[in-house]
């Protein structure tokens, strides 16, 4: 299920629309993940405040979404483009890759809410494939 030329075009086009709001989107997606999938909180035990909209959640949401933005820029070669991030997640953060799917779902929910007109089924499928490809590239260095 690799990304077609059409998928890449759709993702880049949609990302251009949502890029100005990545801080809000990141915060919302991360909040929903922490609330809806409490097991993900185990990765943030060093934070003071894990509640939706906290300063830490907002800051980290932006970090994560910026990472996704990086992936959009290197959409033609995600494995190499995300090498550094893959090493980070594999060796330092050691996030179980199953969680990438969870965050992807939460991100799609936020996008559906915030961009009801642009988030068509066609955009949905390309974004879903793209986030799946990102997750795969992020898992590259794990073993």
């Amino acid at each position, binding site marked *: 299920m690799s990304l077609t030329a059409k998928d890449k075009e759709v993702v880049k086009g949609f990302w251009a629309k949502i890029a100005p709001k990545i801080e809000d989107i990141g915060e*919302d997606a991360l*909040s*929903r993940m*922490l*609330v*809806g999938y409490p097991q993900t909180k185990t990765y943030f035990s060093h934070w003071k405040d894990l509640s*939706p909209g906290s300063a830490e959640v907002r800051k980290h949401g932006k970090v994560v979404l910026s990472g996704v933005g990086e992936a959009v820029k290197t959409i033609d070669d995600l494995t190499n483009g995300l090498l550094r991030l893959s090493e980070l997640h594999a060796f330092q953060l050691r996030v179980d890759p199953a969680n990438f799917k969870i965050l992807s*779902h939460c991100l*799609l*929910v936020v996008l*559906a*809410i915030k961009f*009801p007109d642009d*988030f*068509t*089924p*066609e955009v*949905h*499928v390309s974004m*879903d494939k793209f986030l799946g490809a990102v997750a795969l590239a992020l898992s590259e260095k794990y073993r």
Partner: protein
Amino acid sequence: MVAWTDAERKAIQDIWGKLKPAAGQKLFTIARIPCLIVYPWTQRYFSSFGSLSDAAAIKSNKKVAAHGEVVLKGLGLAVKNMDNIKATYAPLSVLHSEKLHVDPDNFRLLGDCFTIVVAAHLGRAFTADIQAAWQKFVAVVIAALAKQYH
């Protein structure tokens, strides 16, 4: 037995109230579109439905709409019997396993798609807490549907 908090019960009933009228069936048809497009292999169960080749075809397909109504009725059963979804769904589970031969993984795909459609429909009212309650409900429904497979 699944334990529901008062807040969760209220969230599910509220969402259902917003989905139940004719809007609900239309909504489910709309949910079908993303599911059949985002996960095209789910079309395998609807080969007798005629053309499902694109969003426009799916939207205008009468069999999809009728099926949407059937599925929504099923969900309504779960909403009415929140404390006993497993038993309520036993016959439905047997149906999906023995007669329809649906891979239970499809329930999860449709569940995710439907959640995204509900989110788009409710907008900001679909808060993180409400999403969590809704996804818990969907997970219980899916588990009940998959229960009688063997």
